[in-house]
């Protein structure tokens, strides 16, 4: 799924040369998702994430993540607002094809007027920290190749682009797969199926990508 350009490039310097201080922050509250409040959280989350999608995710996508991995979902709240949710990250964590314990950051969104304050970075860190606590071996995600802000955010956190996915999104845009190893030896862990996807050429079409993102819309 795509990730959000919520941090402007100047927010954290790319090179050690420039050091622009971050803009002053409102007092935001960062909280972990709590299923007891799903009635309030899920609609707000959907609205935040669907904002710029031409085609929204069905409720099952949210349920899929939140019911199974609600503890990996974090939200940024501005309590001065009637609808306080201004940022959200949704993830999952499970063994990848019988191999490494793989975290997946599925969605990361920050309300447009709140971007550039490091909220997305903070949310991504909370999700990653939660996965590290749960002994994750690696974390992966996809992002649109044109989404420079999101790519920079994840690369600052240590992710590398492992491959480029041609016309991955419905709008015809391509994606990068971004990968973060958290332990040594992850690359050599055996999986049931070869991670490099396509079967030998004559045997027909490749299986669909393991992740969702064929359903995604434009830049957000």
């Amino acid at each position, binding site marked *: 799924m795509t990730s959000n350009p919520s941090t402007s490039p100047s927010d954290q310097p790319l090179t050690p040369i420039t050091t622009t201080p971050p803009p002053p922050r409102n007092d935001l509250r960062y909280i972990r998702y709590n299923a007891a409040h799903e009635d309030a959280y899920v609609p707000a989350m959907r609205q935040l994430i669907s904002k710029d999608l031409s085609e929204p995710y069905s409720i099952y996508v949210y349920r899929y993540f939140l019911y199974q991995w609600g503890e990996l979902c974090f939200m940024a709240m501005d309590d001065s607002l009637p609808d306080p949710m201004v940022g959200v990250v949704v993830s999952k964590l499970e063994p990848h094809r019988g191999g490494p314990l793989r975290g997946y950051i599925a969605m990361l969104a920050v309300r447009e007027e709140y971007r550039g304050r490091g909220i997305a970075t903070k949310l991504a860190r909370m999700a990653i920290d939660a996965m590290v606590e749960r002994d994750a071996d690696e974390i992966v995600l996809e992002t649109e190749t044109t989404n420079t802000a999101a790519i920079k955010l994840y690369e600052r956190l240590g992710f590398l682009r492992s*491959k480029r996915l041609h016309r991955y999104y419905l709008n015809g845009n391509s994606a990068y797969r971004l990968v973060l190893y958290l332990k040594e030896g992850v690359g050599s862990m055996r999986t049931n199926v070869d991670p490099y996807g*396509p079967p*030998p050429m004559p045997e027909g079409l490749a299986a669909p990508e393991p992740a*969702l993102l064929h359903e995604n819309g434009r830049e957000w």
Partner: protein
Amino acid sequence: MRVVSQSVVPRDITDEFTVAASRLKTGQLVKDEYFTLFEAVGALEIMDSKMDSGYLGPGENRAQALEDDYDLTRELAPDEVLGVMDGLLCYEMAWHMGHPLSQTLFTSLYLDKLLWPVPKTLDEAHFFRGRLATNKEDPAMIHLVLRAYCLALVKCCDFVHARVATEYYFEEEDFVTQLYNRTLLSQFEPEPFYDLLNRAISWIDEQKGKIEENVREAIRTRLLIRREFLLALEQDIEVIETRSREHFLVCLSQFDHLTKSASLGKDVSDSFSLKIQRKLASTVPPRPMVKINFDDALAHLKRLCQDAVDLQEIIDYHGPYNLKVTIWTLLSRKPQPSVYIRSLVQTLIVNNMTILGAVPVKQFLYDELAELVLPSSILLQANIDEIEVPSDPRFQIAKQMDAFVKRFSQPFVDTFRSACLNRCRIRRTVCHTIADWDNLQMEAEDLDEQLRTLSNEPPLMLANGDATYSYPLSSWAYHHKLNQFRLILQLGFELSIYAPEELPGMYWYLSHICSTHLGHIDRVRTFTVATAKRNLTDMAAKKRGALERHAALQKSLRLLERLTTQIVAIDAFAISLHALYVLLARHHVLPTASSAQAYSSDRLRYEIRMKPFLQITLPELVPYDEYHREAMLEGDSDETVLERATKAISEARKAWEATLANGAFMPEFDDEANTAPAIEEDWKRDVKDTMRACIGASIAIETVKKSLKSNANSAQSKDPANASSVNLRVIIPEAGSKARWHDWWIVPQVSQATVGPKT
């Protein structure tokens, strides 16, 4: 009436379901282990207008939701016909580009009328379907001209669809084959389509003076292009026999007319409607029409025609090496040739176990072995059909070689076919096949050992007195594997996979692979030279076949020399860029993507990078510590590193000059005429772009040198505080930008930072 199978007894479970569902908490998910993210994403919410294409909004009735008011029988002015034609061409090309028919051509009400319900005869496919015949004469502009154009356009799509669907492509990534239960008129022979087009052209010719001339001319051009395009697509792989470029060339000759008359058409956009999507048999949510502008559509079509013309240059077989050059050069054009062209090339490469419709796969593989590792060897001459005595070693050799062919043909041919994938998939596929080639090499090694005994191969004596053997088949497999290593790295540069801070290491790794490869080619050469020497004795003795053997050996040596020159060129350039990037990194002017607060370390990032190579046995994986030492040139002073960069770039420039002078192809005979001039032009441009990149690198190295020098001076004199930081600005040019001379060579733009007073 409902049809109910005898064995199934329906039972209303609504109440039970409601009771069970009421026990669930909000948000609770009941699923089996097979309900994955993929299923969750595929789910649609019924009654949500964004997801449910059958949803009717409040106050909307079925007729309004499904039917358009547009009158297909209304008369169209000539400029409106032109507008519809050009609108259709845009959607046709959007479909070629990989968008589904439901968002492109199948939004046309005209096409919808022709194609649904599926017509039983071609006569049935007309715009007046379902209407009672009137005495009024049907307007020829629509009934004849537009209908002929539309039907022929659909037939064109039929040929494209058939070709792509036969070959290896990625659904939704390269192309969408979904037809929504309609046909692209595949049930009809092409002849009547030409009749219709010719009648339309004649009618248009008769209208001279009756309708505005430039519009009339524009319509005529479009009908003509449509006819020629259909002829060209119908030819398809028959091109192997016909060798005809005529139809594509006629299309190309009309593009000026097309471009000039682009503005004459009048938009009839209400003849396209998204409502048709609701009637198409499909489970996807409603999706918007894909609009591309006419210029982009023309550019796409023009490239397709040009690529199709030039594609003929691959058909003449001049050995595997030359074939590989033509295919990879043609398919590396930017933008990449369309999926239709790529599918056509795949079929030409291999169809019914025959290469280019002429060379049996076994012969093709033997030619390759003869070119590289086995010139004039008994291994390739032994033929099981001719020797019937099983005790004869030649019988045994032939048997072993047949097993080899069986096992290696497919992966070998795939090294050609993989060029036809989209660029991202090429890299992903090679990351996968490289492990196969590692296994193939080991299997070939076993075969080599058996064959060596059977063929009584004389060993080569090393200086230390040890005997060594040529291992031709596994040597050949290793050569291919090393090519793939290089391709993975170079496509990594092309696809912007590497972060700036990885560039020193990645160029080091490229040079490491190159020097390994050069060593390997040297080994192969040593054995070929030894064979050639032995053959000289045979020649002197005027032994049978010695002269032919000599020619084959010399040819192989020339190819090895050619490969050496190319790899030396790549190696030298990589060494130079490696050294340059080391300096930039050392002095902290190389941009970095990761931050000090990153979760991963260099060591972990190296492991991700090496992932495709982790399971490869040869060449062995470079351990991280060694990699880091080498990649950062630890222990070498700035002067040493600068010297290295300067020397290497000058060697690279010479080697690329030599590569260019060698030309794209291996001549089979001395005075052979070049049969692939257009592709050779592309190849030359590519080498010249590389040479420009070399010059760019020389300049960057000079800039760094100056800066380091003035830095050293100021350090010695008065400004020690400033000594550690060089005053440079470094930009890594993006792939596709002007400053990026070549996709495979990321040359940094280095300039003096404009800080402080300048003299």
